[in-house]
């Protein structure tokens, strides 16, 4: 395949073709394809399978969505949302000991190591947008991030970013689609900001140099995504997140006089002042284990999501650093959460081969006409239902109807018929529109232009988060949140293309409003860690084991047989120090 297989790199092709026991089912997919193709051509792609009614959606969600499973949620016992049912794994890390002892750090608080107007925590597109807008508003900015600037879920987004830029569309229509996708539980003021700012964000990104896909006359290419009533999905090939974030990062590097960036420096606790305002953070040099006191007039939390908590044992599409740190820090400081009972499972995560288990197969595959089919080769669901509904339908097809395809390791999967795209559109479409996907599977010997992919829902997105208003303010003065760490924009179900939008829209808002707040702030008061002390007391009352520590910062992938031999190693929670 042109431009794809580099003879210099060895991909061990023989090793990963589909095992022979799957061949019979693969044949059925090929056999049913002409009939499916005919329907798509004659009736139109939106009519290939009936969409579910509101009642059918409810039913499949309640019976099969992982959020509704027993043990998926439990009541959190301490903090501002005490008594509320939230995702079990999140409740566990909230009810955990801090990484630092307030008494040890108290003397350091009098002499901060760094001072800034706005501290941004997180280096994805929300953090980067916040830093740029805060700087533009006139603030001095410090951006700290656990790994490198740009290491984030943002960079992995493939499919697109929504914006109502076409004449037949409008921000009001966008609003309606978002509300419906979120089952009308979304916070209206956030959805309004999302839809109304979208074209402005696209303009801003274009001026900074983001290369959106265009038609020859300059018109932005727009397509449908799951749950859109107008074609509204803009894209940068299937590197949309990378295409945006690489520009934001470059721009930050160009403004290095006013925006200081510290890589490999996670925030481990927020600092507060006597008036109960957030006034900075304790950050850790992740490589030397030095801790620094950062005094800041305002803090923007932009730490992203929770995929690496592997809720209910699901594999994830998420970045290595997606460990829910921002919610933990904010919650300890008294910030309320919204919809932390809801996690998005993306319908199409790779399940074969094992090496790419959980990897994202972009919704764009279905957007281009790709069809999910069962082991008999039959279509069983409209391909572009809202994500939670689509994922639940996949789980039902495998678990209840026994129509899934088992992998050698015992996972279940659904075929995602990608080759049909080449016939529906024209040959070469897949390689042009989905270069990242082609490359991903080619590395493991699967040619998605000729063979389907095997997929199953994978943990993808934190629907809930810190409760903010449209200015990104939490209920704690001085604390702002933007991006995946914020809750409410999507209700309990996000639509494709609205996360890339959320991180840029609210990143910009958080940066602007945090800077305005910081610049207007008159007196600075002494810093304290009383909130950490108070929270620890509650943790102690619950009798939580001392080994349970958060923010967890990194997932723990060291096998137990190694740990047993690490006789002098010290693990603080999951992190070996």
């Amino acid at each position, binding site marked *: 395949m042109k431009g794809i297989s580099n003879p210099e*790199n*060895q991909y061990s092709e023989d090793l990963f073709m589909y095992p022979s026991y799957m061949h019979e089912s693969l044949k059925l997919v090929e056999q049913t394809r002409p009939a499916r193709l005919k329907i798509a051509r004659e009736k139109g792609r939106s009519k290939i399978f009936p969409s579910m009614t*509101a009642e059918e959606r409810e039913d499949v969600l309640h019976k099969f969505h992982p959020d509704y499973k027993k043990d998926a949620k439990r009541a959190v016992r301490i903090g501002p949302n005490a008594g509320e049912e939230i995702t079990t794994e999140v409740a566990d890390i909230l009810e955990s000991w801090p990484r630092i002892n307030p008494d040890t750090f108290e003397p350091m608080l009098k002499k901060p190591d760094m001072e800034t107007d706005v501290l941004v925590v997180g280096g994805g597109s929300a953090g980067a947008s916040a830093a740029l807008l805060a700087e533009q508003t006139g603030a001095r900015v410090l951006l700290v991030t656990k790994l490198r600037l740009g290491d984030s879920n943002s960079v992995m987004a493939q499919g697109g970013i929504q914006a109502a830029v076409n004449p037949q569309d409008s921000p009001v229509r966008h609003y309606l689609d978002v509300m419906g996708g979120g089952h009308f539980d979304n916070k209206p003021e956030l959805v309004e900001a999302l839809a*109304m700012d979208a074209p402005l964000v696209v303009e801003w990104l*274009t001026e900074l140099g983001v290369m959106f896909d265009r038609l020859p006359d*300059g018109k932005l290419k727009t*397509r449908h995504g799951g749950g859109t009533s107008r074609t509204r999905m803009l894209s940068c090939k299937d590197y949309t997140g990378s295409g945006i974030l690489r520009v934001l990062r470059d721009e930050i*590097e160009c403004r290095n006089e006013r925006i200081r960036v510290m890589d490999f420096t996670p925030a481990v606790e927020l600092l507060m002042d006597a008036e109960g305002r957030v006034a900075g953070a304790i950050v850790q040099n992740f490589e030397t284990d030095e801790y620094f006191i950062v005094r800041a007039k305002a803090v923007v939390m932009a730490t992203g999501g929770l995929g690496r908590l592997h809720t209910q044992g699901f594999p994830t599409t998420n970045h290595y650093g997606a460990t829910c740190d921002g919610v933990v820090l904010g919650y300890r400081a008294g910030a309320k959460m919204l919809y932390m009972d809801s996690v998005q499972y993306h319908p199409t995560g790779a399940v074969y081969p094992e090496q790419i288990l959980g990897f994202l197969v972009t919704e764009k595959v279905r957007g281009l006409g790709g069809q999910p089919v069962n082991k008999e080769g039959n279509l069983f669901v409209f391909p572009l239902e809202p994500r939670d509904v689509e994922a639940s339908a996949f789980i039902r097809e495998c678990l209840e109807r026994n129509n899934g395809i088992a992998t050698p390791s015992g996972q279940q999967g659904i075929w995602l018929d990608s080759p049909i795209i080449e016939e529906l559109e024209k040959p070469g479409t897949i390689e042009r529109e989905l270069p990242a996907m082609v490359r*991903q599977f080619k590395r493991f010997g699967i040619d998605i232009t000729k063979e389907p992919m095997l997929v199953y829902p994978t943990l993808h997105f934190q629907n809930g988060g810190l409760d903010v208003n449209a200015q990104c303010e939490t209920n704690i003065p001085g604390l702002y949140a933007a991006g995946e760490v914020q809750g409410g924009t999507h209700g309990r179900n996000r639509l494709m293309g609205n996360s890339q939008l959320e991180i840029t829209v609210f990143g910009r808002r958080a940066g602007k409003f945090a800077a305005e707040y910081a610049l207007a702030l008159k007196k600075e008061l002494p810093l304290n860690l009383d909130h950490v002390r108070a929270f620890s007391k509650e943790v102690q009352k619950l009798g939580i084991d001392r080994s349970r520590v958060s923010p967890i910062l990194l997932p723990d992938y060291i*096998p137990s047989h190694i740990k047993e031999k690490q006789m002098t190693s010290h693990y603080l929670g999951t992190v070996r120090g």
Partner: protein
Amino acid sequence: MGKKFMVPAASTIMSALEYSGFQLKRGVGCREGFCGACATVYRLKDDFKIRTGLACQTVVQEGMLIAQIPFVPAVKPVYDISKLEPTITIFKQLYPETFRCLGCNTCSKACPQDIRVMDYINAVERGDLAKAAELSYDCIRCGMCALRCPAEIGQFNVAILAQRLYGSCLAPKSKEMIERVEQIRKGQFNEEMAAIKATDKAALKKMYYERDIEPGESV
């Protein structure tokens, strides 16, 4: 890493490192081939060739010798993109080393994304920024090209400048987008938005399920 490890067959280099007890901080990122954090240099058993790959995307082989690259230093000038002319001159000023390209194509051979790196560098040398932007678009900044380049070019930074100049100056403008932005700034949707925001859930639900769907290509 010059040291023997026994790992399960068919592991990626990244999972093999973790299986061996390394808790990664550098050399790890998205784990799906999008972030470029895990650039790795390796040689295969009884083979003189230096190969490059992403640790999260490369399957181990017996006798493979590996080294992970924690960071790739490269020149990064500061500029104001809105003030630059999209011409060859700016590259001569900011990245003069680009024009030292020897034409050896080692950069392209080193690219785990199979990008024709030398071709986009040559496009920059010709002043064809559109071509350079297009050819370099799948770059994930792992930096292997720059490490292997005998002319000491920092290709990935040259690429982002070409892309930004193309995206901000050279790409044709969208009339529809400009108009929509104007409409929003003028407050054209404010009234309708206020009305839909005030609509109760039942009525909104009805609107949603009755809304018409535009025919048209999906993503």
